[in-house]
């Protein structure tokens, strides 16, 4: 049976009513949690993981796919309607989206983000459908030494690229690898670094680590420096998309997809790099350069599309090679492991039903998100009104619940607290969290492959680099480093250029409040005094035509 036939089977499976319900629960929860301030996609997935503990694998992964895409989606809504410091992936969306919202075109910004995410998500999922089985078939022929090479690539790129400095990334990776060592060696049944504590003999639960460093760490971090005071939420106003908006948006969606998908597949590419690349491409190609920084719709459409395409791109190495390239992917890999399912080349052969149902549910999730998001914007915005004390108390309670639930042991709670302290310290001292999580999950797998490779070569370490694939991989690694270094430099230059531009009011610490230029003062037909929640019907006369833009 061809891949298309398998995909159809996947749809037949995923379209069963019960699975649709799981998908719906997944996208709804994912979006809701993703919208909340302070919770990124990786934390969303980690926090909601316990909900799938007792489900059968197919149901669990359908729900998980929904949570993953929903969590990605949630952030953009927040960044268009608020202008707050947040995750780097949404900074770009905030740039133009927030400007559009302030100019009374919030509805159009949300619409182009939502439709763009849908278009990009769907095209990227199609690409995933086409590419993944082929990659998996090729990957079956890889030897353990080849896998070691791939993992070295993943480790080094992730450590070097995520975070402020390579040395701090390496430190974070080392911490993760150490945590991954704790437990019983799978090949010789020897206990390592268990400190004689029986509960540690099975190793540290990945969920506990992920929830600890993300959720508990974040809560402590926030508790130590709680920000007080609200930010204004811009009412959703203006018409949804005009024909002109659509005409300007669709090329940007396609370009964003074309940029996002491949960038997502490379280690440490991830969402934020792709959004910056897409933004710079849009700005370069636009005939209305002067509108950029003042609410150009292409500047929302492109990066949002890129963001979602990258989310699908990340799944290619995850599903076909078992290599997570982002923290979110690492948590998903952990979820697979908890079902005894090993993502990798054999996944498509061993679990065709599960994997194709999962892929089909990505298509379904995208449709659900498109249908859900725009009408529910008011509800999502309402979630931002949860007082911070309650929000973080809730996060901590849920984190504790999840950690206890996986093993029914208070030792896990103690570990959760200690890992929370670690996560807090890492945030304060500027160590990226993602490499630690990836190291924890990928470390044991890498060790196993390494030892197998050495067994095959009977202890000859040169075997690690002499297979053609490994040799090519290590050469590509060097090339990749050059490329990523160039991308990062571009991103930071762009960030400096774009964010430093005083035409723009960015949401970064770089610009203190007092220096923000007041450009919106008056003149805009701002519908005032309307609750964002109530404002899904655009008031008459608040549809500035496109060309007028914001130039005064």
């Amino acid at each position, binding site marked *: 049976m061809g891949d298309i036939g398998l995909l159809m089977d996947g749809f037949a499976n995923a379209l069963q009513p019960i699975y649709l319900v799981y998908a719906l629960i997944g996208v709804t929860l994912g979006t809701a949690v993703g919208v909340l301030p302070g919770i990124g996609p990786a934390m969303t997935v980690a926090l909601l993981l316990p909900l799938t503990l007792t489900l059968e694998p197919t149901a669990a992964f359908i729900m998980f796919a929904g949570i993953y895409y929903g969590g990605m989606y949630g952030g953009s809504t927040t960044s268009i309607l608020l202008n707050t410091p947040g995750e780097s992936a949404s900074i770009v969306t905030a740039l133009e989206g927030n400007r559009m919202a302030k100019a009374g075109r919030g509805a159009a910004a949300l619409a182009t983000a939502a439709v763009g995410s849908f278009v990009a998500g769907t095209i990227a999922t199609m690409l995933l459908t086409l590419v993944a089985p082929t990659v998996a078939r090729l990957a079956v022929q890889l030897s353990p030494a080849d896998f070691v090479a791939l993992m070295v690539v993943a480790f080094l790129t992730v450590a070097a690229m995520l975070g402020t400095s390579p040395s701090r990334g390496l430190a974070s990776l080392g911490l993760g690898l150490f945590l991954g060592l704790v437990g019983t060696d799978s090949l010789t049944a020897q206990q390592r670094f268990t400190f004689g504590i029986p509960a540690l003999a099975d190793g540290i639960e990945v969920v506990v680590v992920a929830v600890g460093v993300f959720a508990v760490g974040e809560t402590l971090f926030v508790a130590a420096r709680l920000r007080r005071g609200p*930010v204004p939420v811009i009412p959703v106003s203006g018409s949804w998309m005009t024909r002109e908006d659509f005409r300007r948006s669709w090329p940007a969606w396609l370009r964003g997809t074309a940029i996002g998908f491949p960038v997502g597949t490379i280690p440490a590419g991830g969402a934020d790099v792709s959004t910056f690349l897409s933004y710079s491409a849009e700005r370069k190609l636009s005939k209305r350069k002067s509108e950029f920084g003042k609410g150009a719709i292409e500047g929302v459409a492109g990066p949002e599309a890129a963001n979602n395409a990258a989310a699908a791109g990340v799944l290619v190495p995850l599903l076909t090679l078992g290599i997570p390239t982002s923290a979110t992917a690492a948590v998903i890999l952990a979820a697979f492991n908890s079902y005894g399912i090993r993502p990798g080349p054999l996944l498509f052969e061993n679990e065709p039903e599960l994997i194709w149902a999962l892929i089909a549910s990505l298509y379904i999730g995208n449709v659900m998100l498109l249908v859900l998001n725009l009408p529910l914007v008011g509800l999502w915005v309402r979630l931002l009104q949860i007082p911070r004390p309650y929000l973080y108390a809730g996060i901590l309670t849920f984190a504790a619940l999840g950690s206890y639930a996986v093993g029914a042991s208070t030792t896990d709670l103690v570990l959760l607290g200690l890992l929370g302290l670690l996560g807090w310290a890492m945030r304060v001292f500027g160590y990226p969290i993602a490499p630690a999580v990836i190291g924890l999950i990928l470390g044991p797998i890498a060790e196993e492959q390494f030892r197998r490779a050495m067994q095959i070569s009977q202890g000859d370490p040169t075997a690690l680099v002499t297979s053609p694939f490994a040799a090519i991989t290590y050469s590509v690694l060097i090339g990749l480093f050059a490329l990523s270094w160039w991308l990062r430099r571009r991103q930071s230059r762009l960030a400096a250029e774009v964010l430093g531009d005083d035409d723009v009011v960015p949401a970064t610490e770089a610009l203190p409040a007092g220096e923000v230029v007041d450009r919106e003062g008056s003149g805009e037909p701002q519908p005032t005094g309307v609750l964002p929640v109530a404002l899904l019907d655009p008031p008459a006369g608040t549809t500035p035509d496109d060309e007028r833009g914001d130039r005064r």
Partner: protein
Amino acid sequence: MTVVVGYTPRPQGRAALRVGIAEARARGEDLYVLNVSSGASLSDPTYATEEQWAEVVEELRASGVEHRAERHVDGRGGAEEVTRAAAEHDATLVVIGIRHRTATGKMLFGSDAQRILLDVDCPVLAVKA
């Protein structure tokens, strides 16, 4: 002698502002308009945005009533601040906007209106949108 208005950028808040202006004019007293956020959440719809506040200031200026308008974040929240302002400015009347609340909502999150009604020493005028 002052009329104090607890303002929120909601229909009932705007109604309170209108009534407050009328009352101050009729009594020949000053008007003190206050908008407070407890700052507890990232988004607080009861806190006026710059634009909304500019409208309030404009409306007050147009009314010709002697007035002061203040908008700030205070952790103690709106009810405490209005009560404090009423005492401080020797208020003869406090005007607030009220709306329907569910019993659960009131139990869990309290009612600023109720606290003001009980805590303020002068008469309180509750206005519906």
